[in-house]
């Protein structure tokens, strides 16, 4: 999935030191709609355990024998189950809401990782130029050549519980061993690692443009160290770009996580994941369609929300597209 809708040359920079983009951003309708959806989802996700404790919401992993009908099939919506039950008698609504916790957490964590990596490499390449730039961009291109999802599937497929001894086998130091298990941590690491190459080009282009601006030239002429220039001038000014990239990237990481869960290599059961619910619910689609439709709609809403935010941010920050 294309992971950026922005054309980097169009994003304009405010004069150094200005923070005028704040209020303008939130006045944009798309951003408001997107942000509203995200906040709603996040609130539900955060509140879920409390709601369960107060018995407003059911348990997401409790297999309720009353949750299946006489033939052992899921119940349709109604009668205490707002969206019906799944193939093990669990409440679909509860699982969708708890699934938001998984998706939003992994999505955000993966995005942060990807942005961090992308920034590191992109800023270094753009700022220092020359051979370093060439090498880093070659490296990025290599990573870009493999479809992200394919790489993610390959990595996630490896997570089958085996133990890795990172040190040579002759050294019998076991303490650095770790187990490759499926879980939230390994998943966000994989997704973040697979996403960063897509961000580098844009960041680097920005940094290249910025490098030639007067205030940067001036700072360097005055003898400011590279670190100061980067931290004080470059980074704050690519912030708008990074925000847009970040928003759109979360949309992608959520889709990736859903895809991996769908294939069965995401967070293991009984954790509720949207992709996993769709995959489990497929055989029951004809008798209990909500099992597949509800988590699908949830994914679409979440991803759409972040895409809208990204688009709205972009329109605010890119005067050419401003209406």
């Amino acid at each position: 999935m294309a992971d950026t809708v922005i054309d980097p040359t169009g994003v304009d920079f405010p004069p150094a030191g200005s923070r005028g983009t704040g209020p303008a951003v939130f006045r944009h309708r798309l951003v408001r709609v997107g942000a509203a959806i995200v906040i709603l989802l996040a609130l539900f996700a955060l509140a879920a355990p409390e709601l369960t404790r107060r018995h407003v919401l059911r348990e997401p992993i409790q297999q309720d024998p009353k949750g299946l009908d006489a033939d052992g099939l899921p119940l349709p919506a109604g009668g205490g189950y707002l969206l019906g039950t799944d193939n093990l008698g669990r409440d679909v609504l509860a699982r969708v809401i708890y699934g938001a916790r998984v998706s939003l957490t992994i999505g955000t964590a993966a995005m942060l990782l990807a942005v961090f990596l992308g920034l590191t490499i992109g800023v270094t390449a753009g700022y220092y130029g020359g051979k370093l730039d060439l090498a880093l961009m070659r490296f990025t291109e290599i990573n870009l050549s493999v479809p992200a999802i394919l790489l993610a599937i390959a990595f996630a497929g490896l997570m089958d519980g085996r133990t890795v001894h990172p040190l040579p086998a002759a050294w019998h130091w076991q303490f650095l061993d770790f187990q490759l298990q499926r879980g939230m941590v390994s998943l966000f690491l994989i997704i973040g690692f697979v996403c960063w190459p897509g961000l580098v080009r844009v960041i680097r282009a920005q940094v290249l443009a910025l490098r030639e601006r007067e205030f940067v030239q001036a700072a360097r002429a005055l003898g400011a160290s590279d670190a100061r220039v980067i931290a004080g001038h470059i980074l704050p000014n690519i912030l708008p770009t990074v925000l847009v990239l970040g928003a759109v990237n979360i949309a992608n990481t959520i889709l990736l996580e859903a895809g991996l869960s769908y294939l069965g290599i995401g967070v293991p059961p009984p954790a509720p994941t949207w992709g996993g619910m769709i995959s489990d619910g497929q055989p029951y689609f004809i008798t209990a369609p909500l099992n597949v439709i509800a988590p699908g709609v949830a994914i679409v809403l979440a991803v759409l929300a972040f895409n809208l935010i990204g688009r709205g941010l972009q329109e605010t920050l890119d005067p050419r597209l401003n209406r």
Partner: protein
Amino acid sequence: MLNRMLTRLFWSAVTLVAVAVLTFFLINAVPGDVARSIAGSKASTEVLQQVREKYHLNDPLPVRLGHYLAQLARGDLGHSYLTDQSVASAILTRFPTTAALCVSGVILWMLVAVPLGVLTAKFRGTWFDRAILVLSTLSLSLPAFWLARMLQYWLAFRLGWFPVAGFRSFASLLLPAATLAIISGGYYILLIQANMMDVLNAPFAVTARAKGASEITILFRHALRNALIPVVTVLGTDVAALLGGVIFTENVFALPGIGTLAVQSVFNLDVPMIMGTVLFSATLVVSVNFVVDLLYRWIDPRIKADY
């Protein structure tokens, strides 16, 4: 020009080798008893030992990498651990299906996205433009597997307008292509829209209008051609993303393409097959980029070299 081309070719080759090395390390670095998946769970210890020797599984990693690269240089992608089929022949057998699917998908979305993109530029600011924007963003947000299932269930199973699955005739490609088109198309509508805006306000367009050329002529003759340039570029880099969408689509519609091969081989831990598919997709991406790069320079010589 030739110099440039050769340099590009060289770097493309280097990229591919690097992809091979990196992927090899990442996939093989983690120890696991591959011998079992080759020989089957019933195999005796002796059989497993033979298998380990045959596939050099006991050798240290760099040695195995050396074997693998030498093999690649001979053009041999190895044999599947599972079925002993040649990886190259497996991929080549399935490539036409994936290619047909991708091409159909691209044609479909171009048929839809190009007119829509042009029209939204023409009618910017109106409800039409806004609606298309939202719809495009919506289509970007659909998970491929979910959309594929919905289309399959409603249009193929319920209404019977299309075959449900398998690759029996050209009609089998229509729904999968539609899935790909919907998912990728939104992005291009937005891109075309953005670029059309530029072009319609550019000096040459203003001049043309002043000279009395009709809006339609401007739109389609001048603006469109210029607006398509970035699309072509992005299409090149987007092959990787397209292949990603293909994986789920092929899975749901049971099309015998590279996508299903990739997923099956990962689940079976069929390492040569995984390497083969990764390398193949990398080759595709690199080749398409190379071609696009050439075309790009040919279409618009003013564009400076990137890196």
